[in-house]
């Protein structure tokens, strides 16, 4: 793999994901507004929000752990960028990906949440600490069914831990398609939690803990968080489409159908967010562990039996 390919993909992927993320944020806000009989913001509003924050002062609470507080958004952002590069590389050329990059992407997508926990916990605010503890519990809750859901896809495609391989063998056979559909639905619900959208937004819950983990952030660090969140809002649907739904590969037609799938996933996430109230953290954990995990286990076993 030559350097030009790596650098090129990295730049294209980060910029592309940032743009896709901000557009998705706009879709989110616009669809939400239309559902709620409001007009909604203009297309560039998510970008304006970030640009405005970049010009604001950075305030660090006196009792906060400065390094952890300020480094957390940077770590989260960096992880999102690398994950973006890997995902895009797999979709641009499925035959040229790293072996086992699924595992790497999986861990990289987990990093922003971990960074959020570190940032919230080091900001010395009781609301942020509660938010961080909720985020931690939520991670424990959704990672298990999510992992199992990804496993259904891995098993159904003949134990490929390679994003390119997953794309090429997506949903081989009817039974494979069914188990992957189940995995996909579980994946969407876990994504809802990973992105911190209602009904799983208890880590920030502005009407309970005033924004929770984000409460002490201001200025550029907050802008970085918003950008990371926007990128995650693009990356998670891309990840789902890549792992469960054949990705974006296959020339112009592949990109077009991929984009359609992507928008469908985003709109699905937004609609779930707008038709549910926020759950309590214990209810969310119960939902993921006792509700989704058994279904995911059954899906994995079925996939293995069929394969």
């Amino acid at each position: 793999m030559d350097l030009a390919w790596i650098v090129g993909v990295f730049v294209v992927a980060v910029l592309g994901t940032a743009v896709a993320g901000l557009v998705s944020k706009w879709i989110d806000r616009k669809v939400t507004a239309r559902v709620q009989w409001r007009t909604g913001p203009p297309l560039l509003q998510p970008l304006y929000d970030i640009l405005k924050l970049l010009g604001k002062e950075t305030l660090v609470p006196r009792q906060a752990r400065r390094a952890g507080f300020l480094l957390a958004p940077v770590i989260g952002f960096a992880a999102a960028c690398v994950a973006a590069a890997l995902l895009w590389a797999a979709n641009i050329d499925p035959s040229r990906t790293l072996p086992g990059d699924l595992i790497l992407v999986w861990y990289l997508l987990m990093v922003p949440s971990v960074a959020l926990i570190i940032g919230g916990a080091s900001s010395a605010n009781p609301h942020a600490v509660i938010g961080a503890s909720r985020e931690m519990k939520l991670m424990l809750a959704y990672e298990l069914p999510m992992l199992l859901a990804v496993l259904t896809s891995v098993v159904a495609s003949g134990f490929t831990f390679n994003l390119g391989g997953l794309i090429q063998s997506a949903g081989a056979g009817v039974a494979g398609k069914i188990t992957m559909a189940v995995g996909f639905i579980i994946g969407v619900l876990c994504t809802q939690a990973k992105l911190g959208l209602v009904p799983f937004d208890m880590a920030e819950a502005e009407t309970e803990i005033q924004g929770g983990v984000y409460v002490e952030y201001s200025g550029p660090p907050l802008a970085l968080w918003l950008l990371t969140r926007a990128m995650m809002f693009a990356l998670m649907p891309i990840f789902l489409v890549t792992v469960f739904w054949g990705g974006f590969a296959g020339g112009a037609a592949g990109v077009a159908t991929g984009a359609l799938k992507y928008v469908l996933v985003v709109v699905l996430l937004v609609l779930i967010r707008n038709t549910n109230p926020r759950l309590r953290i214990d209810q969310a954990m119960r939902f993921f562990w006792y509700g989704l995990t058994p279904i995911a286990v059954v899906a994995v076993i079925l996939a293995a039996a069929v394969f």
Partner: protein
Amino acid sequence: MKRTVVPIGPFHPILEEPLRFELHVEGEHVVDADVRISHNHRGMEKMCEGLSYDQIPFLLARVCGICSASHPMAFCNALEDLCGCEVPPRAQYIRTLICELERLHSHLLWVGLAGHFIGYNTVYMWAWKYREPILDLFEKVSGSRNHYENHRVGGVRRDIPDEVFPAIRKTLDELEPKAEMLLGAVIDDPVIHARTKGVGVLRNVDAVAYGVTGPTARGSGVNQDIRDTEPYAAYDKVDWKVVVQPEGDVFAKAAVRLLENFESIKIIRQCLDQIEPGPICADVRELPEGEGIGHAEAPRGETFHYVRSDGTNRPVRYKVRAPTFVNVPSFKANVIGAELADAMLIVAAMDPCYSCTQRMSLIRDDTRQQSVITHDELLQLSWAKTERIRRQC
């Protein structure tokens, strides 16, 4: 486990008015709670003593931004109790109609806010949209969307023109299916059940012991409604029933409010059917010396007003007790032991209206066994501030 104090307020996204809650939590578990009211003392009772009886309703409408009609209603009840005058039937019906429209808009507002508090912003926006035509009605009926009260001693200030009646009927006809939809959205949604059923239970005995009123009491199975127990205006002439739910949880309180919407619609329709042309105000020339007591059922519960007159055109003492003042302390009975995520929802379920409750309160320091500030010190502070403002001007 380590105990953390989570401060909520005096400024917090959930509070539309200043108030401070201190929740002592272990993990997510609330083990103790404290509340401080009186961040916004407005001295309205004192101001009443300087106003004539015709001016007071305008001030009392501003005790609460939502119960604009209930406080003047209680004032009229108090004054009519004092002078014993007969209010013409048309005025009675107009008062009832406005008070019930107020209940409708207040309950819809609460449903929206409650949705917002549990992160369900769609319900928030929808409920407030459904509330909008009622505010438009207020404008048609009284000329004002928010201060729509038109009570005065002996009757009402403004008549409702006959051409407005069809508009009221039309709005009600349109509102009814929407209220049914909202009721269905709450009754049938499993996630709302998960968040509200069995949460913040105020047991019947606690409700009685804390003396809570309004939907907070009726949600705990206390059959108490001033419109029923001491009917004023035209409530004894129309057919309606008190909505009571026995469970005492947040869900029950929501159900009480959502079901009361239908009772309000029923009452307004009957008022429109029964109202007849006639005078709208009795001629009250003089008020005797003495005391008067007035109750009214505001959307949040019983509003109590007391007036003492010396026979002049101003009260010697005026006293207002808004429903939230008796409802707020009940959080001691149902917030402690709850989860932090539920705490504010439980408080919100009593539909608190904080500025109405504001008193001057003296805080007592238990270690020093005396007040943190005495009356004289407060007076000194007040004089110093007046002096400072005077110098700035």
